[in-house]
């Protein structure tokens, strides 16, 4: 079941999902982005995130091409390596009035593009590749922009797609922001 191993990034998929599935999952990604934009974090957890979620955003190292270690590695430093327990704690903080980095509120946009949807070796599990641009603006002129790619596994159960795996690969080595007060 390698597609459910968080440590193994996607290799080549070629089996595109049918048009309807692609349409439904595309809508799903856009809806998710809209919920995150309005900071609907509890709704996000409840409606989009599977109980078995593995949510991983590694630290992207700058290494030589011939370095066998590659530029990231599961088990090393990361921004997120969360199960439902950790995601729930993060969401709880957002709900506190004293979460100062979010009060006054941050203004968010999640732009999602380059969506590709593939069938996988597991029934009702779809591999979804996408890219994002995340813009956060606060107070008067604080602006942070992050770009990256995502590798998702979405599972269809009882007519609903839920996220079971997300790998987030940003393009920054030094995070050019003071924090990451969002989900990607």
């Amino acid at each position, binding site marked *: 079941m390698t597609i459910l191993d968080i440590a193994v990034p996607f290799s080549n998929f070629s089996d595109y999902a049918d048009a309807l599935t692609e349409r439904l999952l595309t809508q799903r990604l856009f809806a998710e982005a809209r919920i995150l934009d309005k900071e609907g974090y509890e709704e996000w957890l409840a409606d989009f995130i599977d109980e078995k979620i593995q949510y991983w955003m590694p630290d992207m190292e700058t290494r030589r091409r011939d370095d066998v270690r590659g530029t990231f590695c599961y088990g090393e*430093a*990361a921004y997120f390596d969360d199960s439902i327990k950790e995601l729930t704690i993060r969401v709880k903080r957002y709900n506190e009035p004293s979460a100062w980095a979010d009060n006054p509120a941050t203004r968010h946009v999640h732009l999602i593009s380059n969506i590709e949807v593939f069938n996988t070796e597991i029934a009702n599990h779809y591999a979804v590749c996408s890219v994002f641009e995340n813009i956060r603006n606060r107070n008067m002129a604080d602006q942070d922009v992050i770009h990256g790619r995502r590798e998702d596994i979405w599972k269809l159960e009882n007519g609903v797609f839920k996220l079971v795996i997300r790998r987030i690969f940003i393009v920054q080595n030094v995070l050019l*922001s003071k924090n990451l007060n969002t989900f990607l």
Partner: protein
Amino acid sequence: MCDNNSCGSARPNMKPVYPKADKYPEFAKLVDEEKSQVDRRVFTDEEVYQAELKQIFARAWLFLAHDSQIPNPGDFIRTSMGEDDIIVVRQRDKSVGAFINSCPHRGNRVCHVDSGKKSRGFICNYHGWSFGIDGGLRGTDGGVYDKDETFEKSEIGLPPVAQVQSYKGLIFGAFDPEAPSLEEFLGDFTFYLDIMLDNDQGGTEFIGGAIKSEISCNWKFPAENFVGDILHASWTHQSGAQAILGGGVDLGKRYDELAFQASIYGHGIESNLDKVGNTRTLGYPDLVDYVFDLSEKAKDRLGEVRARAIGAVSSSNVFPNFSFLPGQNTFRVWHPRGPDKIELVVWTIVNKNAPDHIKEQYRKGVMMTFSPGGVFEMDDGENWEYSTKVNEGYMTRQQPLHYALGVGTLDEERDLPGIVHKGSKNEANQRLFYSRWAEFMKYDNWDDLQNSKVTLPQNKKQQWSD
């Protein structure tokens, strides 16, 4: 340059240059010890900042790496000392060398990666000069200089950091050839470092990789925060504590009796000695159990007091910019990048002998709390950025800042090394951090620096083996 035959008859002098420090008594006065206040120019002024690079970062011992990051010859990591780009590389004889990451030809950066394994050396991309892991020039592309008698290969190399020494796994470097030994620079502060570095046989290691981020703040705000600002925890971090613990930050039942701040040469620690308060905030019950057991076992190595400090609500900064949190096991450096910017590098430390699942929970716990997406760290950056940025206002930066919490709480009775104050909710360590800063501005020599009246503890000569 010149157009006659004498041109080029003298060879370049390629010996590394280690400039002497200066004296900046005017800048030292920005710290008013008498009134417990600090002038905001220490955070904003470009000239003060340049003086910091010269007086502090070109002289003091600065953290470079943990032994575990570069175990084998040729293993290296890149880091900074102040704004200087540095390669830290394990030598064939297992010692560690550190070099300025700039080619002596045109100055190009020689090494562009964060780290590497078993490297044989570094080759400059510009004209192909190559350097060994000892920093020495090995050759040039195409051997064009080989027949040139004036090309004194032996004198050319990556400029070495003058001194590299380590303390229980932590490697430090000093640009100043005159700097006293690392142990002298740390003084009795090693007593407190051992809480993290020596609480278990087998020593410590860093978990692989590092999280780096940029914060638009002066480097001293985070350094003074870690040196002794538990005051902010219950207010700034109320949201994080609520999310993880379901309640506020708990300073322990025996606060009045146990909590303290201690400072030695501007290095400082504050702790409530409540055993597991910091560890608890990582949110994993197994870790709390682990630290309780560790604390029990560590009494033999560290004695009663320090055994209580391993996981306690506490924080620490080694002057100038190397911080850590016992119990939460994050080590970090706040690299200056101008008066109003830092690059923060964060690592997680664990005991080598800790079980794998414990190491994994520390890794995850640091990610949950003290990393850019962490429920505590998120709210710190915001504070430090605005404490810095607001001083763009001309009139604003004329206004003094108040550092007087706990004036008159000196504890001369307490049997602990350093200048000890009662209670961790205190600004004593921050005052002493700025006193040390002022000493680096004021003094151009280590004799004065190491015998200072203000930051040198009177009980220096005592022995602290329990």
